[in-house]
Protein backbone atom coordinates (compact mmCIF):
# COMPACT_ATOMS: atom_id res chain seq x y z
CA UNK A 1 0.00 0.00 0.00
CA UNK A 2 1.42 3.35 -0.89
CA UNK A 3 1.23 6.30 1.37
CA UNK A 4 -1.64 8.65 0.73
CA UNK A 5 0.15 11.74 -0.36
CA UNK A 6 -0.87 14.71 -2.40
CA UNK A 7 2.65 15.85 -2.67
CA UNK A 8 2.53 17.74 -5.94
CA UNK A 9 3.74 21.26 -5.39
CA UNK A 10 0.87 22.92 -3.64
CA UNK A 11 -0.27 26.33 -4.85
CA UNK A 12 0.42 29.25 -2.63
CA UNK A 13 -3.12 28.97 -1.43
CA UNK A 14 -5.01 25.72 -1.48
CA UNK A 15 -8.79 25.46 -1.35
CA UNK A 16 -9.96 25.94 2.13
CA UNK A 17 -6.76 27.61 3.27
CA UNK A 18 -6.89 30.85 5.20
CA UNK A 19 -7.52 34.17 3.48
CA UNK A 20 -6.09 37.52 4.60
CA UNK A 21 -8.68 38.01 7.30
CA UNK A 22 -7.96 34.58 8.70
CA UNK A 23 -4.30 35.47 8.99
CA UNK A 24 -5.15 38.74 10.76
CA UNK A 25 -7.42 36.91 13.17
CA UNK A 26 -4.79 34.24 13.71
CA UNK A 27 -2.14 36.84 14.53
CA UNK A 28 -4.47 38.52 17.00
CA UNK A 29 -5.29 35.14 18.52
CA UNK A 30 -1.62 34.52 19.12
CA UNK A 31 -1.07 38.06 20.39
CA UNK A 32 -3.78 37.40 22.94
CA UNK A 33 -1.39 35.05 24.66
CA UNK A 34 1.48 37.53 24.93
CA UNK A 35 1.97 38.65 28.51
CA UNK A 36 1.49 42.38 28.90
CA UNK A 37 -0.91 42.83 26.02
CA UNK A 38 -3.78 41.71 28.17
CA UNK A 39 -7.20 41.55 26.59
CA UNK A 40 -6.50 44.14 23.88
CA UNK A 41 -5.82 41.70 21.00
CA UNK A 42 -8.80 39.53 21.86
CA UNK A 43 -11.12 42.52 22.10
CA UNK A 44 -9.77 43.88 18.81
CA UNK A 45 -10.36 40.48 17.28
CA UNK A 46 -13.89 40.41 18.64
CA UNK A 47 -14.56 43.80 17.09
CA UNK A 48 -13.23 42.73 13.70
CA UNK A 49 -15.32 39.57 13.74
CA UNK A 50 -18.41 41.60 14.65
CA UNK A 51 -17.81 44.07 11.83
CA UNK A 52 -17.47 41.14 9.44
CA UNK A 53 -20.75 39.69 10.68
CA UNK A 54 -19.19 36.64 12.30
CA UNK A 55 -20.94 36.98 15.61
CA UNK A 56 -20.01 33.47 16.79
CA UNK A 57 -16.30 34.11 16.61
CA UNK A 58 -16.84 37.63 17.92
CA UNK A 59 -18.38 36.20 21.06
CA UNK A 60 -15.62 33.64 21.30
CA UNK A 61 -12.88 36.24 21.07
CA UNK A 62 -14.62 38.40 23.60
CA UNK A 63 -14.82 35.41 25.92
CA UNK A 64 -11.15 34.73 25.36
CA UNK A 65 -10.39 38.18 26.76
CA UNK A 66 -11.55 36.94 30.13
CA UNK A 67 -8.48 35.85 32.08
CA UNK A 68 -9.80 32.40 33.01
CA UNK A 69 -10.43 31.58 29.37
CA UNK A 70 -7.00 32.79 28.45
CA UNK A 71 -5.53 30.46 30.96
CA UNK A 72 -7.57 27.59 29.63
CA UNK A 73 -6.50 28.29 26.07
CA UNK A 74 -2.94 28.06 27.20
CA UNK A 75 -3.76 24.57 28.33
CA UNK A 76 -3.34 24.99 32.02
CA UNK A 77 -4.98 22.64 34.43
CA UNK A 78 -6.26 25.58 36.45
CA UNK A 79 -9.50 25.76 34.52
CA UNK A 80 -10.13 22.08 35.04
CA UNK A 81 -9.64 22.54 38.75
CA UNK A 82 -12.09 25.44 38.68
CA UNK A 83 -14.92 23.03 38.12
CA UNK A 84 -16.36 20.75 35.52
CA UNK A 85 -18.64 23.35 33.94
CA UNK A 86 -15.97 25.98 33.74
CA UNK A 87 -13.57 23.42 32.40
CA UNK A 88 -15.93 22.47 29.63
CA UNK A 89 -16.48 26.09 28.65
CA UNK A 90 -12.81 26.91 28.84
CA UNK A 91 -11.86 23.83 26.88
CA UNK A 92 -14.34 24.71 24.19
CA UNK A 93 -12.87 28.19 23.92
CA UNK A 94 -9.45 26.64 23.50
CA UNK A 95 -10.46 24.15 20.88
CA UNK A 96 -12.53 26.68 18.96
CA UNK A 97 -9.37 28.62 18.51
CA UNK A 98 -7.76 25.50 17.14
CA UNK A 99 -10.32 24.94 14.44
CA UNK A 100 -10.71 28.33 12.91
CA UNK A 101 -9.95 27.49 9.35
CA UNK A 102 -6.25 27.35 8.84
CA UNK A 103 -5.56 29.33 11.97
CA UNK A 104 -3.11 28.72 14.73
CA UNK A 105 -4.26 26.58 17.61
CA UNK A 106 -3.44 29.38 20.01
CA UNK A 107 -1.13 27.13 21.93
CA UNK A 108 2.20 28.49 20.92
CA UNK A 109 2.72 26.74 17.60
CA UNK A 110 3.27 28.65 14.44
CA UNK A 111 0.86 28.19 11.55
CA UNK A 112 1.21 24.81 9.92
CA UNK A 113 4.18 23.66 11.92
CA UNK A 114 2.60 20.58 13.45
CA UNK A 115 3.92 17.12 12.76
CA UNK A 116 2.65 15.33 9.63
CA UNK A 117 -0.27 13.04 10.31
CA UNK A 118 0.17 9.32 9.91
CA UNK A 119 -2.33 6.59 10.66
CA UNK A 120 -2.82 2.89 10.14
CA UNK A 121 -5.44 1.79 7.65
CA UNK A 122 -5.86 -1.95 7.23
CA UNK A 123 -2.46 -2.49 8.74
CA UNK A 124 -0.61 -0.08 6.47
CA UNK A 125 0.85 3.28 7.45
CA UNK A 126 -0.78 6.18 5.68
CA UNK A 127 0.31 9.82 5.63
CA UNK A 128 -2.45 12.32 4.99
CA UNK A 129 -1.22 15.36 3.15
CA UNK A 130 -1.89 18.66 4.85
CA UNK A 131 -3.12 17.12 8.08
CA UNK A 132 -0.94 18.08 10.99
CA UNK A 133 -0.91 17.18 14.64
CA UNK A 134 -1.80 20.06 16.92
CA UNK A 135 -1.48 20.22 20.65
CA UNK A 136 -4.95 20.58 22.13
CA UNK A 137 -6.28 20.70 25.66
CA UNK A 138 -9.07 18.20 25.19
CA UNK A 139 -12.04 18.35 27.53
CA UNK A 140 -14.75 15.74 27.28
CA UNK A 141 -18.05 17.47 27.71
CA UNK A 142 -21.11 16.36 29.65
CA UNK A 143 -23.22 13.75 27.87
CA UNK A 144 -26.39 15.82 27.79
CA UNK A 145 -24.54 18.68 26.13
CA UNK A 146 -23.08 16.34 23.55
CA UNK A 147 -26.50 14.85 22.87
CA UNK A 148 -27.96 18.28 22.26
CA UNK A 149 -25.23 19.13 19.79
CA UNK A 150 -25.67 15.80 17.98
CA UNK A 151 -29.37 16.50 17.73
CA UNK A 152 -28.72 19.95 16.30
CA UNK A 153 -26.26 18.53 13.79
CA UNK A 154 -28.64 15.84 12.57
CA UNK A 155 -31.55 18.23 12.71
CA UNK A 156 -30.08 20.75 10.32
CA UNK A 157 -26.47 21.56 11.12
CA UNK A 158 -25.05 19.15 8.59
CA UNK A 159 -27.46 20.28 5.91
CA UNK A 160 -26.82 23.96 6.59
CA UNK A 161 -23.07 23.42 6.34
CA UNK A 162 -23.39 21.67 3.00
CA UNK A 163 -25.69 24.34 1.62
CA UNK A 164 -23.24 27.00 2.76
CA UNK A 165 -20.45 25.35 0.79
CA UNK A 166 -22.34 25.23 -2.47
CA UNK A 167 -23.80 28.70 -2.11
CA UNK A 168 -20.45 30.39 -1.55
CA UNK A 169 -18.83 30.95 -4.97
CA UNK A 170 -15.33 30.64 -3.52
CA UNK A 171 -16.12 27.42 -1.76
CA UNK A 172 -18.06 26.05 -4.72
CA UNK A 173 -14.97 26.63 -6.82
CA UNK A 174 -12.94 24.74 -4.24
CA UNK A 175 -15.40 21.86 -4.46
CA UNK A 176 -14.84 21.74 -8.22
CA UNK A 177 -11.11 21.74 -7.60
CA UNK A 178 -11.61 18.85 -5.21
CA UNK A 179 -13.14 16.90 -8.07
CA UNK A 180 -16.86 17.16 -7.43
CA UNK A 181 -18.99 17.02 -10.56
CA UNK A 182 -21.75 19.57 -11.21
CA UNK A 183 -24.29 16.92 -10.23
CA UNK A 184 -22.48 16.28 -6.96
CA UNK A 185 -22.28 19.99 -6.21
CA UNK A 186 -25.98 20.23 -6.89
CA UNK A 187 -26.41 17.39 -4.41
CA UNK A 188 -24.38 19.31 -1.85
CA UNK A 189 -26.46 22.43 -2.56
CA UNK A 190 -29.57 20.45 -1.65
CA UNK A 191 -28.05 19.67 1.73
CA UNK A 192 -27.28 16.03 0.99
CA UNK A 193 -23.89 14.43 1.57
CA UNK A 194 -22.49 13.12 -1.74
CA UNK A 195 -21.66 9.43 -2.02
CA UNK A 196 -18.27 8.47 -0.68
CA UNK A 197 -18.08 11.45 1.67
CA UNK A 198 -19.16 12.41 5.18
CA UNK A 199 -19.17 15.56 7.28
CA UNK A 200 -16.47 15.39 9.93
CA UNK A 201 -16.21 17.39 13.14
CA UNK A 202 -12.60 18.52 13.38
CA UNK A 203 -13.05 18.41 17.11
CA UNK A 204 -15.80 15.93 17.98
CA UNK A 205 -19.09 16.82 19.58
CA UNK A 206 -18.29 14.04 22.00
CA UNK A 207 -15.62 16.30 23.37
CA UNK A 208 -15.02 20.01 22.87
CA UNK A 209 -16.20 20.49 19.29
CA UNK A 210 -19.24 22.36 18.08
CA UNK A 211 -21.38 22.52 14.96
CA UNK A 212 -19.82 25.82 13.91
CA UNK A 213 -19.01 25.64 10.22
CA UNK A 214 -15.33 26.26 11.01
CA UNK A 215 -15.32 22.96 12.89
CA UNK A 216 -16.80 21.00 9.97
CA UNK A 217 -15.15 19.53 6.91
CA UNK A 218 -16.53 17.45 4.06
CA UNK A 219 -14.18 14.47 4.08
CA UNK A 220 -13.77 11.45 1.85
CA UNK A 221 -14.95 8.58 3.92
CA UNK A 222 -12.61 5.68 3.27
CA UNK A 223 -9.80 5.76 4.21
CA UNK A 224 -9.57 9.30 5.53
CA UNK A 225 -12.53 9.57 7.89
CA UNK A 226 -11.94 6.06 9.20
CA UNK A 227 -8.25 6.77 9.77
CA UNK A 228 -8.89 10.04 11.59
CA UNK A 229 -11.63 8.50 13.71
CA UNK A 230 -9.40 5.65 14.84
CA UNK A 231 -6.64 8.06 15.82
CA UNK A 232 -9.03 10.31 17.70
CA UNK A 233 -10.56 7.36 19.48
CA UNK A 234 -7.14 6.12 20.53
CA UNK A 235 -6.23 9.54 21.93
CA UNK A 236 -9.36 10.20 23.94
CA UNK A 237 -11.24 6.95 24.44
CA UNK A 238 -10.12 6.74 28.03
CA UNK A 239 -11.69 10.03 29.07
CA UNK A 240 -14.83 10.27 31.13
CA UNK A 241 -17.19 13.27 30.98
CA UNK A 242 -15.44 16.24 32.56
CA UNK A 243 -12.04 14.64 32.08
CA UNK A 244 -9.28 16.45 30.26
CA UNK A 245 -6.02 15.62 28.56
CA UNK A 246 -3.46 17.37 26.44
CA UNK A 247 -3.30 15.48 23.17
CA UNK A 248 -1.69 15.79 19.78
CA UNK A 249 -4.77 16.04 17.60
CA UNK A 250 -5.00 15.47 13.83
CA UNK A 251 -6.42 18.67 12.41
CA UNK A 252 -8.06 18.43 9.00
CA UNK A 253 -7.45 21.64 7.05
CA UNK A 254 -10.14 23.65 5.28
CA UNK A 255 -13.70 22.67 4.52
CA UNK A 256 -13.14 19.82 2.04
CA UNK A 257 -10.58 17.03 2.33
CA UNK A 258 -8.75 16.03 0.26
CA UNK A 259 -8.78 19.37 -1.50
CA UNK A 260 -7.50 17.92 -4.76
CA UNK A 261 -8.65 14.87 -6.70
CA UNK A 262 -6.30 12.16 -7.78
CA UNK A 263 -5.00 11.35 -4.35
CA UNK A 264 -4.43 7.63 -4.44
CA UNK A 265 -6.08 5.80 -1.62
CA UNK A 266 -4.31 2.81 -0.13
Amino acid at each position, binding site marked *: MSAVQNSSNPPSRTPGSPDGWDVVHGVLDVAGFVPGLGAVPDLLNAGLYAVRGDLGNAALSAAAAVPLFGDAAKGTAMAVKAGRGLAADAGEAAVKRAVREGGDDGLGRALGTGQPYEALV*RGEKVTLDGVTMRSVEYVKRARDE*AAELRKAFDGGGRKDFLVSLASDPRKAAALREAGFSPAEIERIASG*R*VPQGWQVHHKL*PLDDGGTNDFGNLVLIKNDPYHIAVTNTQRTLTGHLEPGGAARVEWPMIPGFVYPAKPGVTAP
Partner: protein
Amino acid sequence: MTATTMYDNVLSKIHEEQREAGEAVFAGASDARLADLVEEARATFGAPLPDDYLDFLREADGLDFNGLVIYDSHSSPEARTGHFWQGFVAANLAWREDAANRRCLVFGDTDTDLLLQDLASGEFRRVDRVGRDLQEVFPSLRAMFEQVLAERAA
Protein backbone atom coordinates in the same frame (compact mmCIF):
# COMPACT_ATOMS: atom_id res chain seq x y z
CA MET B 1 -44.68 -7.72 7.53
CA THR B 2 -42.07 -9.70 5.62
CA ALA B 3 -38.37 -9.04 5.68
CA THR B 4 -38.59 -7.52 2.22
CA THR B 5 -41.47 -5.16 2.80
CA MET B 6 -40.05 -3.81 6.07
CA TYR B 7 -37.27 -2.12 4.15
CA ASP B 8 -39.21 -1.60 0.96
CA ASN B 9 -40.78 1.78 1.52
CA VAL B 10 -37.82 3.66 2.82
CA LEU B 11 -35.34 1.97 0.51
CA SER B 12 -37.51 2.63 -2.51
CA LYS B 13 -37.69 6.28 -1.59
CA ILE B 14 -33.95 6.51 -1.08
CA HIS B 15 -33.13 4.67 -4.29
CA GLU B 16 -35.50 6.86 -6.26
CA GLU B 17 -33.84 10.00 -4.92
CA GLN B 18 -30.40 8.59 -5.66
CA ARG B 19 -31.27 7.68 -9.22
CA GLU B 20 -32.65 11.17 -9.81
CA ALA B 21 -29.42 12.62 -8.45
CA GLY B 22 -27.27 10.35 -10.59
CA GLU B 23 -25.89 8.42 -7.61
CA ALA B 24 -25.02 4.74 -7.67
CA VAL B 25 -27.75 2.35 -6.55
CA PHE B 26 -26.89 -1.24 -5.81
CA ALA B 27 -29.04 -4.27 -6.49
CA GLY B 28 -29.40 -7.06 -3.99
CA ALA B 29 -26.66 -9.64 -3.46
CA SER B 30 -27.09 -13.20 -4.67
CA ASP B 31 -27.38 -16.08 -2.23
CA ALA B 32 -24.02 -17.37 -3.44
CA ARG B 33 -22.39 -14.01 -2.71
CA LEU B 34 -23.93 -13.93 0.76
CA ALA B 35 -22.76 -17.45 1.48
CA ASP B 36 -19.23 -16.38 0.60
CA LEU B 37 -19.54 -13.35 2.88
CA VAL B 38 -20.77 -15.44 5.79
CA GLU B 39 -17.82 -17.76 5.38
CA GLU B 40 -15.31 -14.90 5.03
CA ALA B 41 -16.67 -13.12 8.07
CA ARG B 42 -16.53 -16.27 10.16
CA ALA B 43 -12.95 -16.96 9.09
CA THR B 44 -11.79 -13.37 9.59
CA PHE B 45 -13.67 -12.30 12.69
CA GLY B 46 -14.82 -15.58 14.18
CA ALA B 47 -18.43 -14.48 14.37
CA PRO B 48 -21.65 -15.25 12.53
CA LEU B 49 -23.50 -12.55 10.62
CA PRO B 50 -27.01 -11.62 11.77
CA ASP B 51 -29.85 -12.69 9.50
CA ASP B 52 -31.11 -9.09 9.44
CA TYR B 53 -27.89 -7.96 7.81
CA LEU B 54 -28.09 -10.65 5.16
CA ASP B 55 -31.74 -9.73 4.55
CA PHE B 56 -30.74 -6.15 3.93
CA LEU B 57 -28.01 -7.16 1.52
CA ARG B 58 -30.52 -9.26 -0.41
CA GLU B 59 -32.39 -6.03 -1.07
CA ALA B 60 -29.45 -3.70 -1.55
CA ASP B 61 -25.86 -4.88 -1.60
CA GLY B 62 -24.57 -1.81 0.16
CA LEU B 63 -25.88 1.69 0.58
CA ASP B 64 -24.13 5.04 0.57
CA PHE B 65 -26.75 7.70 1.14
CA ASN B 66 -26.48 11.15 2.67
CA GLY B 67 -23.54 10.24 4.88
CA LEU B 68 -24.95 6.85 5.91
CA VAL B 69 -22.96 3.87 4.74
CA ILE B 70 -24.15 0.27 5.08
CA TYR B 71 -21.31 -1.97 4.02
CA ASP B 72 -21.71 -4.24 1.04
CA SER B 73 -20.83 -7.91 0.67
CA HIS B 74 -17.59 -7.71 -1.23
CA SER B 75 -16.09 -4.31 -2.00
CA SER B 76 -12.53 -3.60 -0.99
CA PRO B 77 -9.79 -1.23 -2.04
CA GLU B 78 -8.71 -3.88 -4.52
CA ALA B 79 -12.15 -4.68 -5.88
CA ARG B 80 -14.37 -1.66 -5.97
CA THR B 81 -18.00 -1.52 -6.98
CA GLY B 82 -18.00 1.73 -8.87
CA HIS B 83 -16.66 4.24 -6.37
CA PHE B 84 -18.19 2.31 -3.48
CA TRP B 85 -15.57 0.23 -1.78
CA GLN B 86 -16.61 -0.23 1.79
CA GLY B 87 -17.22 -3.94 1.95
CA PHE B 88 -18.07 -5.47 5.30
CA VAL B 89 -14.76 -7.28 5.73
CA ALA B 90 -12.56 -4.43 4.48
CA ALA B 91 -14.37 -1.84 6.60
CA ASN B 92 -14.20 -3.96 9.74
CA LEU B 93 -10.51 -4.58 9.20
CA ALA B 94 -10.04 -0.82 9.03
CA TRP B 95 -12.08 -0.20 12.17
CA ARG B 96 -10.13 -2.86 14.02
CA GLU B 97 -7.03 -0.71 13.89
CA ASP B 98 -8.66 0.62 17.04
CA ALA B 99 -8.56 -2.13 19.65
CA ALA B 100 -11.95 -1.12 21.03
CA ASN B 101 -13.55 -2.15 17.75
CA ARG B 102 -12.21 -5.71 17.91
CA ARG B 103 -15.05 -6.72 20.20
CA CYS B 104 -17.79 -5.92 17.73
CA LEU B 105 -19.01 -6.21 14.16
CA VAL B 106 -19.62 -2.89 12.43
CA PHE B 107 -22.33 -2.95 9.78
CA GLY B 108 -22.28 0.70 8.83
CA ASP B 109 -21.41 4.20 9.90
CA THR B 110 -22.52 7.80 9.65
CA ASP B 111 -20.87 11.16 10.17
CA THR B 112 -21.21 10.69 13.91
CA ASP B 113 -22.03 7.05 14.63
CA LEU B 114 -21.01 3.44 14.26
CA LEU B 115 -23.79 0.90 13.78
CA LEU B 116 -22.57 -2.26 15.40
CA GLN B 117 -23.20 -5.47 17.27
CA ASP B 118 -21.36 -5.90 20.53
CA LEU B 119 -20.10 -9.47 20.35
CA ALA B 120 -20.04 -10.04 24.10
CA SER B 121 -23.64 -9.05 24.75
CA GLY B 122 -25.08 -9.57 21.29
CA GLU B 123 -26.69 -6.11 21.50
CA PHE B 124 -27.18 -3.92 18.47
CA ARG B 125 -25.92 -0.49 19.31
CA ARG B 126 -25.52 2.94 17.84
CA VAL B 127 -22.39 4.44 19.40
CA ASP B 128 -20.50 7.67 18.91
CA ARG B 129 -17.82 6.96 16.34
CA VAL B 130 -15.09 8.69 18.35
CA GLY B 131 -16.00 8.40 22.02
CA ARG B 132 -17.92 5.16 21.51
CA ASP B 133 -20.47 6.42 24.00
CA LEU B 134 -23.69 4.47 23.71
CA GLN B 135 -26.41 6.42 21.92
CA GLU B 136 -29.09 3.79 21.58
CA VAL B 137 -29.69 0.05 21.90
CA PHE B 138 -32.02 -1.58 19.39
CA PRO B 139 -33.94 -4.84 19.72
CA SER B 140 -32.60 -5.97 16.36
CA LEU B 141 -30.31 -4.89 13.55
CA ARG B 142 -33.38 -4.45 11.40
CA ALA B 143 -34.83 -1.96 13.85
CA MET B 144 -31.56 -0.02 13.87
CA PHE B 145 -31.34 0.06 10.09
CA GLU B 146 -34.95 1.14 9.73
CA GLN B 147 -34.44 4.03 12.10
CA VAL B 148 -31.23 5.35 10.57
CA LEU B 149 -32.61 4.97 7.05
CA ALA B 150 -35.66 6.99 7.98
CA GLU B 151 -33.55 9.66 9.65
CA ARG B 152 -31.30 10.07 6.65
CA ALA B 153 -34.18 10.16 4.19
CA ALA B 154 -36.02 12.85 6.12
